[in-house]
């Protein structure tokens, strides 16, 4: 068990990197997912088709394949995803600014993949608002945009928060894949590093990594359970 104490900095570093990519990917996926969700409920048929196509493709593709596409496709397009080297932000999230592009590729893949699920969570929230609300807003003469902004979205937010939370939890778990895609130093790749190169016993390392992930997922899950139960009581 000494490895947990001796190599605490390695675990903490891995945890920090995983945490970073989760924060960035969550922000990106929420924004992109919201855009796709608006496309999917918009009055313009081609935009709706676009949103539906996006969700169909990314929901049915394994994240591994998305990551491979990001890792092989973007370089073929002549891009190292340098547009993600945003000046102030890459001072906080240092990996964004490095010359090795794998962190940025993994981030893009994670955002693209998660956005499809975020869209579905948001849409299920919109569908949960009772139609009478939107009808009343329409009869007052609000336009589509006003209807969404002042009537539907403020209410749907409440119904989406639990599904959104489970999407985010799933995303945290999915981020474990990046360690197998050449992103050095995240929580999942510490296992290989410590047991392989440095020869530590496997079980303690496994326990350390598990704790790292459980710290992120279990409290979030418990929080969601609580919110869900409170909403259920309120609905009664």
């Amino acid at each position: 068990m000494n490895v947990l104490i001796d190599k605490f900095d390695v675990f903490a570093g891995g945890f920090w990197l995983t945490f970073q990519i989760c924060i960035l990917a969550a922000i990106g996926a929420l924004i992109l997912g919201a855009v796709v969700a608006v496309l999917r409920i918009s009055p313009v048929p081609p935009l709706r088709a676009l949103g539906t196509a996006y969700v169909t493709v990314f929901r049915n593709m394994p994240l591994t394949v998305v990551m491979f596409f990001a890792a092989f496709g973007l370089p073929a397009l002549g891009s190292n995803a340098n547009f993600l080297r945003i000046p102030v932000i890459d001072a906080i999230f240092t990996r964004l600014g490095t010359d090795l592009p794998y962190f940025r590729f993994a981030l893009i893949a994670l955002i693209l993949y998660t956005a499809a699920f975020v869209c579905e969570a948001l849409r299920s929230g919109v569908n949960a608002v009772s139609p009478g609300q939107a009808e009343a807003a329409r009869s007052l003469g609000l336009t589509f945009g006003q209807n969404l902004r002042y009537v539907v979205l403020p209410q749907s937010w409440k119904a989406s928060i639990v599904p959104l939370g489970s999407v985010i939890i799933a995303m945290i778990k999915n981020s474990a894949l990046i360690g197998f895609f050449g992103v050095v130093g995240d929580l999942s790749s510490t296992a290989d590093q410590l047991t392989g190169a440095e020869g530590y016993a496997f079980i303690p390392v496994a326990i350390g990594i598990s704790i790292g992930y459980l710290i992120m997922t279990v409290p979030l899950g418990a929080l969601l359970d609580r919110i869900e139960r409170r909403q259920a009581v309120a609905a009664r």
Partner: protein
Amino acid sequence: MSQQAVLYDVPGPRQRRYTQIFSAVAALVVLAGLYFLVYKPLDEKGQFSLELWGPLIDPGNENFSQVWKRIGIGAKNTLIAAVLAIVASLVIGTLVAVLRLQLKELNRRRFTGLAAPVSILLRGLSLALTALTRACVEIFRGLPVVITIFFVARGFPEFGITFDTLWYLVIGLTIYNGVVIAEILRSGMEGLPPGQREAAVAIGLSPLQTTVTILLPQAFRIMLPALISQLVVVLKDTSLGFIISYEELLNIGKQIIGALGNPIQTYTIIAVLFIAVNYSLSKLAQYIQRRLARGRKTAGVTGRGPTAPAVQAAAAGADEVNPV
């Protein structure tokens, strides 16, 4: 569905015309953008050459039959792993769900007929078992499935147990998805109207009989859409087998790329295969969900019975497919 129609007026002729013009212009802009930003760079690198695509789409190519034979093997291995994992996680999930419900039942018992120390011991034991199963569920649900598979593949040999890589993958997937399915079934059983359980107890069924013959079948029926979406997840997750070098579709793809050097083309084909299978599975889930909803409505005797929210919950659950 109905919600969307409410958000805006049905467009009139002028609005429709605007929409058409706008869409045509937008489509042109997007196509131009795609041409200059995607097609041209790819074409300049020769990514559309028949040299790279040929082995995958041209039956006359010398490598065509070889490549598709390998892809066939990969698809077969993926399906084998997926089917085994699905069956195993359904079994495990059902057992865990029943076990957790039984333990909950056991916790209510006071063991009054027994001597005080014995009854306290038994109550402590049942509490401890409940806590243990709860902890297991929380832990395995909270761990990434990649990590679970990796730990299984690395951890079992530590104890001197070795299998084929297929079994590491199946065990890893089963641990995670079994727990998830157990939670789906449990929430299905707890969402049933309490009258079901009370009636079963009233006609003298034991708690176990009540769960197995009354609650479980209904939970399966209500949660069918959510269960099928979970099966899509299992199928997608078999692609993680490549990290423990199990010969599934993705790994075969890697081998093909190693031989022919055409990553983008091969992954496109693999993505299309995955999307086709998973899309039809999710369509099946939607179809079953509609059938269930209709069955409830036409059954009609209970009218808007208390099961309606449970069906809706299941539908919502199917909507947000748990990603990977």
